[in-house]
């Protein structure tokens, strides 16, 4: 996390080593991460185990297979399900503390391996969606800024609609349009870059609408700012003013939200990965919840929580890079 302070900045000026106050801030922040992870694990564990139901049935084949009493006993013993809940929890926590995520009983393999197999696909999808969402949001903003009052209203309306559409519905519409009518993109995930287009678009559109709405407000303020008037006076074109000055201003609050957006993309992956039959953690999470695979669910939640905290940190850094005022404070 020291990276926050040693980020290479384009401006000149001496960078300083962390002050004692900063070190304390770092410790607090690290403590916060540990607390978030512990809370995530604890809440997930109890939420899953307190729902009525029998994980032993799920372990023995799930839907459609009916297990005999001997087999159920064996499974309960093997996975410690016959222990009191608190004992199960403490055992689990103890193993977590040593970095052992445990064994997934629904997949017959270690949780860490299972997550490792799926994490890349979800990360790729989330990052593609995030980039695509930013591209869409900026493009729409650029167009509507130049197009006058009507374009502004249209752009604003589009963002509102985009932000409100549910993933499930959007996915269906996109499949109908691009796969069945135009026949240019596969309706389900296929190997290669073509397969990621529709899933990423499905997640990017609502997010773009959201980011666009947040940007629009500050875009308006920025356009009326003195520095824009000055730029105009220097004879800079409107396009240049938009990309160089106003967008930069408008993007700050939206960048701050990208950490949150990344988290929401991971949860969106639950729906999108299922609809497009893509590999990924979202799909693992869905089936793990259905099968009461507590170790796998908790493992995934922990990894997502970790990714989320890292992403928040990255957006903090990005914030500083965009906004020189933030940089001034740290220097």
């Amino acid at each position: 996390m020291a990276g926050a302070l040693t980020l290479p900045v384009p401006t000149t000026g001496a960078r300083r080593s962390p002050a004692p106050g900063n070190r304390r801030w770092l410790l607090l922040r690290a403590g916060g991460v540990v607390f978030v992870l512990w809370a995530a694990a604890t809440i997930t564990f109890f939420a899953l185990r307190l729902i009525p139901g029998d994980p032993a049935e799920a372990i023995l084949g799930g839907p459609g297979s009916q297990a005999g009493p001997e087999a159920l006993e064996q499974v309960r013993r093997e996975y410690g399900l016959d222990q009191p809940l608190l004992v199960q929890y403490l055992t689990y926590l103890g193993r977590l503390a040593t970095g052992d995520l445990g064994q997934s009983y629904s997949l017959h393999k270690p949780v860490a391996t299972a997550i490792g197999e799926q994490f890349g696909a979800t990360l790729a999808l989330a990052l593609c969606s995030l980039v695509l969402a930013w591209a869409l949001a900026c493009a729409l903003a650029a167009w509507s800024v130049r197009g006058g009052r009507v374009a502004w209203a249209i752009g604003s309306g589009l963002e509102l609609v985009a932000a409100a559409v549910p993933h499930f519905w959007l996915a269906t519409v996109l499949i109908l349009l691009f796969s069945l009518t135009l026949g240019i993109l596969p309706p389900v995930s296929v190997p290669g870059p073509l397969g990621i287009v529709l899933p990423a678009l499905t997640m990017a559109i609502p997010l773009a609408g959201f980011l666009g709405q947040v940007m629009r407000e500050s875009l308006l303020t920025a356009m009326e700012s003195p520095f824009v008037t000055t730029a105009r006076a220097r004879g800079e074109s409107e396009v240049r003013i938009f990309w160089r000055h106003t967008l930069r201003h408008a993007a700050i609050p939206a960048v701050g939200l990208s950490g949150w957006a990344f988290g929401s993309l991971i949860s969106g992956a639950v729906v999108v990965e299922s609809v497009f039959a893509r590999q990924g953690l979202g799909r693992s999470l869905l089936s793990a919840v259905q099968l009461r695979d507590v170790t796998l669910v908790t493992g995934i939640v922990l990894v997502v929580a970790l990714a989320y905290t890292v992403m928040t940190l990255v957006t903090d850094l990005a914030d500083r890079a965009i906004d020189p005022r933030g940089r001034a404070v740290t220097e």
Partner: protein
Amino acid sequence: MPSRRFSRPRAAAVVAAAALFLAACSSGGGTSGEATGEPVSGGTLTYASGDAEPSCLDPHVGGNYPQALIATQYLESLVSLDDDGEVIPWLATEWTESNDGLTWEFSLRDDVTFTDGTPFDAEAVAANVAHVQDPATASSTGYLALAKIKDVVAVDDHTVRLELSAPDSALLESLSQVWVAMESPKALERSQEDNCAAPVGTGPFVVDQWERQDSVTLVRNDDYSSPPADAEGAGLPYLDSIVWRFIPDSASRYAALQSGEAHVIDNAQPDTIRSAESDDSIEELDAPRPGAANRIELNSGKAPFDDERVREAFIRAVNVDDGIQSLFFGTAERSYSPLSSVEPLGLSLPDLFTVDTDAAADLLDEAGWDERDAEGYRVKDGKRLTLDFPVSTNQSIPAEQSLFEQIQADAKTAGFEVNLHPLDLSSWYGALAQNDYNLVSAPYTKVGPDVLRILYHSASIEPAPSGYFANLAQVDDAELDELLIQASSTSDAGERADLYERAQRIILEGHYILPLYDQQNHFLRSSTVHGLRAMPTVSTPTFAGAWLAP
């Protein structure tokens, strides 16, 4: 002595959960015209399954229908069934039963090798039975199928003797199921994780690679030589490989078929089947599953259904036919039998299910439910006539869940308050284990009428919470028990048929169940796919003879 434990395999249907109807506005696919004629070798076929991805590709472990679907492509059994339900040779060429029914001797094919090079022989059969019966395997379906096998003796290399603890007229039917198919004994010695990832059999295809949550790749077994006795031709499979994908969303799955990404899909929903009818490039394969019909069980073990009059009133009050018509678009046919229509010994008694709301009202009055409260529900001793109906959303397709809602509305008119509880699988098992239900629908797949013993013998009313109990109607009838035990021990075909008919009569006339339709099992295929057929055993499609028109 007949075993008192409930034994024998069972596997119930799973049906994919999601279904959003996607209008078919384009025929897609790009192929037209029936390509007929000589089979063509080569090509890769993509199969898209709506079922949950199995957690283990070895159907000995656990044992459910999604495992059966894929394992049919690489595992084979000792015997199979033909289209008339007769047992026919497969890896076993012939068999004899001793007079007391306790000893069975099977002659095995001597020219079959597992795809890892291990020969198929009597020791292999013994190793497979041991694997299924080993508690560490955690087999549920296969374990019950082989429950009466006490000992396996290799008489010589290619003769094996099974010693039973009790006579079992369903033994051959049980052995035909893919949940107890033969795997390489050498492969079984690996860790469970390894064996789950790539089981080794004698089938037409071999598990090549399993990319979790994406697909399993199966490649042709170039040394294949052991089709069941009813297979056409004995040659090699035509397809080079099969990509077995998991596409849980019903609309996406159908879109994949239309756009040519998939050649065959399963779990086709009624609306999809209907819209595929107008598409020349798509054909349907309807393969109802064996065993029990889908039915609503009336829990006779507790009030108010411990009173037969109340059970009959409920059955007479609800109109199931209209609901099936409108919700299934003619893709499902009403059943009046406890058994699937593919079971030759099924008995249908339609007259017992004629809707008669007046008779229902009289029966309820007679049973003491003769007052109504402010909301119109019937009341007795200040208690409302309430029925709890836990619904497993993993096992009931959306059309079926809508049907339950229509039944709820009909029942309300008659004065029943039906509370539908949509639950995920674990919670649903939990509700059943705690006897928190009056109505329930639980699919059950098994080859042969012995499924009746599992579902309706009083021994299957297992005290909770030791495990799943199959007798959800909680039928406890000494005469029925006797009939079912006799039927499972007799080897005389005529006597067996007669005993099962009498048993079904008791179940139907006792108003324990409301049959709905066969366990739906619809597949859609591109018209470029030929030679696809469903196994007459558990109705899983086999690609052994399938080929793709160029």
